């Protein structure tokens, strides 16, 4: 899996994504800056593409960091309660501040995402029975508990309708002015790259890290903060995209190993490509309607997840 091919695929798919949609736009239309097509292109298509790329890369990297730090290949924001904690945070921000601004929602949701992830890591520390498949199950249960709390309060406060926007990941609502929060992912990806070696060492365990003079706890906590930040921005702008952070890092790991400095770029690229493919399929399959991204990723992703589970069993 060469970086060159991934980049090529990404460019081709990006171009395709820009020109697929209900109103047909051809590249020639863009020559006229005043045309309606150019406006749609700039207000809707381009933001959509940028959002997909950033969300895809961001969620995959978040998953990669979580898997490394928890030393479990089946841990990701989906299977560790991070996504559910984020949603609970968004609900709380909506209930606390009547007309919460994006930044207020972001801050509260971030605190919840971080707290949720920390609680999961604490549970992980206490589990004696470290079976590879048992741990994500615990995470899923934990996430479901959080989720039911969210649903309960959302129901009481009559904001279920409102909340469901964050339940289902959806790129059709992405427009200029509604996705810019995602740009936070860019500096986070860069920071993650600079911390890649530390994350790799931390992934070899606490004793191992201490032997190499690494401040283990600090690196783990820092990594979890990055994960919570990315997850929050993605859930707030796009909604929940399940499985992405789980399957992409696993696929790259099979081919390239776990040396993060080498695999981070691949993981980010493949994440973006995978999300683009799902998005384009979702837009084309029932044209002119659209299948939401979380459904597309959920169906394809759970299939791949099952495959990875069985593959793991065969090799264990």
């Amino acid at each position: 899996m060469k970086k060159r091919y991934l980049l090529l695929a990404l460019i081709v798919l990006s171009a395709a994504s820009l020109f697929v949609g209900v109103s047909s736009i051809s590249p020639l239309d863009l020559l006229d800056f005043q045309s309606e097509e150019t406006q749609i292109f700039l207000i809707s298509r381009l933001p959509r593409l940028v959002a997909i790329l950033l969300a895809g890369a961001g969620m995959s990297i978040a998953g990669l960091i979580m898997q490394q730090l928890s030393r479990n290949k089946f841990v990701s924001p989906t299977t560790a309660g991070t996504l559910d904690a984020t949603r609970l945070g968004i609900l709380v921000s909506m209930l606390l501040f009547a007309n919460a601004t994006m930044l207020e929602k972001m801050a509260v949701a971030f605190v919840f995402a971080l707290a949720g992830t920390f609680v999961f890591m604490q549970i992980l520390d206490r589990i004696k029975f470290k079976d590879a498949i048992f741990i994500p199950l615990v995470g899923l249960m934990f996430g479901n508990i959080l989720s039911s709390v969210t649903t309960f309060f959302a129901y009481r406060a009559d904001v279920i309708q409102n909340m469901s926007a964050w339940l289902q990941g959806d790129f059709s609502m992405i427009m200029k002015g509604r996705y810019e929060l995602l740009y936070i992912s860019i500096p986070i990806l860069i920071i993650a790259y600079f911390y890649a070696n530390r994350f790799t060492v931390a992934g070899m365990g606490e004793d191992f890290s201490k032997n190499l003079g690494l401040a283990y706890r600090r690196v783990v906590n820092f990594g979890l903060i990055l994960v919570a930040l990315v997850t929050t921005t993605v859930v707030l702008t796009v909604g929940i995209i399940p499985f992405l952070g789980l399957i992409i890092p696993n696929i790259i790991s099979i081919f390239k190993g776990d040396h993060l400095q080498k695999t981070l770029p691949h993981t980010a690229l493949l994440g973006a490509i995978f999300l683009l493919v799902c998005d384009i399929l979702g837009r084309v399959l029932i044209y002119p309607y659209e299948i939401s991204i979380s459904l597309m990723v959920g169906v394809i992703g759970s299939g791949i997840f099952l495959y990875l589970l069985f593959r793991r069993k065969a090799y264990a």
Partner: protein
Amino acid sequence: MIQVRALSKLYGKKSVVEDVTVDIQPRKITSFIGPNGAGKSTLLSMVSRLLDSDTGEVLIDKADVKKMKSNDFAKKVSILKQSNYMNVRLTIRELVSFGRFPYSKGRLTEEDVRIVDQSLEYMHLTDMQDSFLDELSGGQRQRAFIAMVIAQDTEYILLDEPLNNLDMKHSVQIMKILRRLVDELGKTVVIVLHDINFASVYSDRIVAMKDGKVVKDGPTEEIIESAALKEIYDMDIPIQKMDGCRICVYFSS
């Protein structure tokens, strides 16, 4: 020199290591032996700072280990624990390169690359340096870990049961390498061993522990001796001398 002074560790009310004072001589192999639960691994963990001691202190070259910076400590002392359970898919070369982490934080300099090459060469791993760790046998993996420790280039190397799960051939191979590290590179090696015959044949000094205390401490020939072994293991163990080695024949005692 490593000086352990009145070191203790409690788990709840039970003391696992109790008031241990022992000196570890430089440029020697010192083996820690003793029955299960004697506190050998706990002691090693405290010396290497993986575990905090409750009382007492550890001095390395007269400096208190608790006051040393993590990074400086990592350039002076390395430790390999008995279970290197690793979920991380790295190649041998990548793992060994991380031995240079305390020096370069992963951005390898030319000198780092040279040292990594040498370490691989030293452990005869050059040919298979690009294999992933999870594709290796137990003996190969253990060699890869030791190569990493060699790349870490510390004066003191602590190993907690490095022969665990290894067959005879690989055990001998590892012990010979440790011997060479001391004789050729002037390292100080401290190992926890279960097999007293390996301890007898390869170490310069032996420290015997029992119930958290040091019961014997001295040159190998003073410890591998029926009376001393009786005190340590509560067994009558005859000693046979073969080719200059003292072999404990404990199988039928």
